[in-house]
């Protein structure tokens, strides 16, 4: 069966520090991968999605970047965090060609102080 791992679960970082959040998927190949952000009291904002290795689409220009170095690995990064980067970050995957739902990781609670 397919599983998705996302870590860390919580993170407190000072303003100006770098960020690296990692997401890996097991049990499937060539998934579509997504990073969402959920700010307090708001819905889900799609940040990045990837349909293959090295292929990244950015939905919202901001202080973050994403990379996909391997088929089932998706990384969210920042060189210098801002206070506004605080939020709940969710990784998700879908399988192209099969119109099923997205499967989500457990999320990372990021607090920038």
């Amino acid at each position, binding site marked *: 069966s397919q599983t998705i791992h*996302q870590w860390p679960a919580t993170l407190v970082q000072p303003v100006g520090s770098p960020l690296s959040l990692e997401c890996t998927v097991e049990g499937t190949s060539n998934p*579509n991968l*997504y990073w*969402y952000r959920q700010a307090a009291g*708001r*819905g*889900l904002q*799609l940040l990045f*999605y990837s*349909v293959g290795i090295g292929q990244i689409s950015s939905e919202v220009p901001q202080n973050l970047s994403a990379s996909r170095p391997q088929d089932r690995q998706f990384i969210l990064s920042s060189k210098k965090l801002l206070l506004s980067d605080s939020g*709940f970050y*969710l990784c*998700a995957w*879908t399988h*192209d060609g099969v*119109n*099923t*739902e*997205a*499967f*989500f*990781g*457990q*999320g990372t*609670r990021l607090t920038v102080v």
Partner: protein
Amino acid sequence: AQSVTQLDSQVPVFEEAPVELRCNYSSSVSVYLFWYVQYPNQGLQLLLKYLSGSTLVESINGFEAEFNKSQTSFHLRKPSVHISDTAEYFCAVKAAGSARQLTFGSGTQLTVLP
């Protein structure tokens, strides 16, 4: 492009009462529709989905949703809620066939009161 509107940001309801969470979507092509549930500090879990066929879909825990193409709606209902149903609920839409991403509504916080 698709869009989703969840008109109610918060819905308080007493235990064992019925509830309806509203979802309307906009799309120029055929869509697939989903409801997700999120418990505090967790990821989203699929509650139910409409892909094709019967317009009424049900979940294993008593929720149901009906796809209404003419009204572009996919409202979520439950005839009798429990305290454990307290969570945030997200409606999502995906263009059938070619799209690769889900578009989510802003969410509805369902709070079941004793």
